[in-house]
């Protein structure tokens, strides 16, 4: 069993987890970070989205063995006080219904806006298409991404 060293929300951490164990479960089981959610386990719903070196990835499909030396940010590490521009927009628009998918939505949106700070609506729709919201709060998710982009 190898030790994997990686950076998690700005801190150097390590794990001796099974090499095949997906990051999602390492985050939840070992680091007690419950914000990243299990939704489908096959990368289809986006509830488990985190940032890998700044890019949005599905943590349910990412074996921990691939993370040696990499940098991971989860919803808990997106901002110190929940005041990232996307989080603020989410609150202002009052996006969540059940709220379960929202951490994943926010992680997708924040990575996207970093790469494309001034997106068109079509670009927003494309970027957010991989994240399912079963409550179908899509109308407000779109509105919040647009609001965050403006700021």
């Amino acid at each position: 069993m190898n030790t994997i060293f990686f950076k998690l929300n700005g801190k150097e951490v390590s794990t001796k987890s099974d090499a095949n164990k997906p990051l999602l479960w390492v985050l939840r089981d070992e680091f007690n970070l419950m914000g990243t959610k299990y939704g489908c386990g096959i990368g289809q719903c986006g509830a488990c989205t985190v940032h890998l070196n700044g890019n949005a990835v599905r943590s349910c499909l990412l074996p921990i063995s691939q993370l040696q030396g990499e940098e991971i940010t989860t919803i808990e590490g997106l901002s110190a006080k929940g005041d990232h521009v996307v989080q603020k927009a989410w609150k202002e628009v009052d996006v969540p219904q059940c709220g379960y998918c929202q951490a994943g939505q926010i992680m997708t949106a924040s990575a996207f806006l970093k790469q494309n700070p001034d997106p068109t609506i079509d670009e927003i729709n494309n970027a957010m298409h991989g994240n399912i919201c079963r409550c179908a709060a899509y109308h407000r998710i779109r509105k919040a991404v647009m609001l965050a982009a403006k700021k």
Partner: protein
Amino acid sequence: MMQKKVEMDFSRRDFLRTSSLVGGGMLIGFNFFTACKPEATMPVDLASLDYNDFNAFIKISDEGMVTIFSPNPEIGQGIKTAIPMIIAEELDVPWQHVNVVQGALDTKNYVRQSAGGSRAIRLGWSSFRETGALAKQILINAAAKRWGIDPVHCTAKQGEIINNRGEVLNYGQVVNEAALLEQERTKKEENDKNAIAKRPVLKNPKDFTIIGKAVTNVDVDKIVTGKPLYGIDFVSPGMVYASVLRPPAFGKVLKSFDDEEAKKMSGVIDVIRIGEKTQKIIEGLEIPNVLLTKGVLNKSDKVVVIAKSIWEAMNAKKRIKAVWVDDTPSESTEDHDEILLKLLSGSKFETRRKDGDIQEAFKNADKILERTYESPFLPHNCMEPMNFYADVTDSKVHLVGPTQTPGWAADLVAQLLNRDLKEIELQITRAGGGFGRRLFGDYVLEAAEISDKIRRPVKMISSREDDMLTGTYRPAIKYRFKASIKDGEITGYHIKEAAINGTMHPTIPHFFPAGAIENYQVDVAYYQSNISTGQWRAPHTNFLAFADQNFFDELAEILEKDPVEMRLNMLKRAAKNTDETIKYSAERLKGTIDLVVEKSDYYTTKKGVYKGLAAYYCHNTYVSEVVELTMEGSVPKVKKVYVAVDCGIVVNPLGAKNQIEGGVIDGIGHSMYADFGFKNGVPLNSNFDSYRLIRMKEAPEVETYFVENNFNPSGLGEPSLPPAGAAVGIALKKAIGNRTMKQPLIGHIPANKLTDRQDS
């Protein structure tokens, strides 16, 4: 056996209760159940829901801050924000001073503690207000006593009590005295039941300062920062995880299994078989029984992998070699199609409403139109898969997790484990969606049976596949409509329903167009399947609305009338009908049509934009919607939806609109894309790679308007969903020239019709 238990619980709880908090503060609990007994129960027809009653808890700190316990489960419908708003309004405290806490299951102090049927606000409105108002009066009484004056010389506002001499005390300063007064009052009432009759004075709605204001979801900070809120996030020391292997097909039961390989997998603690206790309950039931039909109990035993983590448990489960045998014959979608169509053409119906004589109307008709509309099974697919925590010990049973019916779940666990209900402690977590799935406590029972067997705290978590393959689905339903036309009018109207496992709720036959057509009949029939089915957001109406609204438009085409005008004329007739069994107000439904026609500019045509209007009443709320649909090549796309809603007083417009927008897009998504079938008892989809849910690119803009009035509020969890798919169907017909009568719409449109007619 179950039914009796329900009634007993009911009467036992039907009185006021209160208690004083240890360490200061006032805790008040009320039961006004008898004061708000519903005139008509809504389409969640489980008798079980009635033992989840309602109640409210208020706690006031010495500083005057208020904690309000929200008793009903929060499943995304916004109830955890709305109920405390109502209580805080009448208690008269600034909303910023309110802290909201989810109440645990408390059968002693709360009533109607459930989420289902869009009922919490509608049925709780008066009592939640009285809860706040009575607490306010008691606080005033305490202040008056301290001042040595009569309470009539005092008023309270914004957390402060003021007397006629201009002296002020805040709620926190008198809370301990108030708590003592409350104790005295309660004792008196327990001795003399008649003392309960005195009701507190409620505010005039024009004086509301919280109700009607846009209030943000009380959990929003925690949600956007990823705090543990959900059942799946709950952990306790020493907790282990369980992954359950259930029958791979409906109709099969477990014979034996080989766990040798699974036991060798990393993290695996044990592999066990459960079901013995479940089977004991089943032995006492008539078959079929509602608990089996809804999938709460399963005739098959199950294999459970216990492991240190859920990932390890799920992995090891794949290595179990189980032998399954047939218990009942397996069923397929093609069988169901044949069976339901046969039912529709047969004569074995139960008549649910009969006005005039439809046969006579058909005999004298100039023209008769007959159509069959068809819908598939649907899984609920809550984003948070079914899960529950159980810790069964000799002294108590501790349960934690997401459920829409905590009272029912606790009762079932008590029966299953042969424990006193008092030993069951159930904590409700925020639920990652409900949609009806979490009405059914199969997963709670599993967790309890597992923990009982291994005597350790355990969390059962379903994988997405487990969740989709072993659901309590929306049943497939088919409707046959037949209408007669004579001298340019609809003279007869016959609705026949053929459904899997059950019929429409008894109130539905009395919805529109009942009362608008002289000869009108609703007949129902069902086929008992071994596939478990249950309520799915807006049961039966979620498809019935599509069927009857599209059928109206077909009739309008034959009559060469404007379909909206035709509806308005029908409503005019219904408005004159004095039949008291009619469940809706024709005027209020008309009000939403007028509003949506105006706001959507319905009669202005736009090139390439096809409009559909649907108007519907269900769950005591009136909703009309106009869909604007375009064709992008061969793909129909809903661009915009205008919604007009009459739900009476809107408690929280921000949350209300969120529900409405979500219901609309959910309705569009499922009617356009969602399909779920079976082959030899095996569901044909198991995850989101093959099961299509609506996503961002398909989601339209939604614009919502409320009819303003002062009617008592009705619920919003379901009512915006049924007309959405209906309006899409109507718009789609205009776009492609053919009416699609089978859902999902995508998949049942003839390929050669998928072109834009460009003629509107």
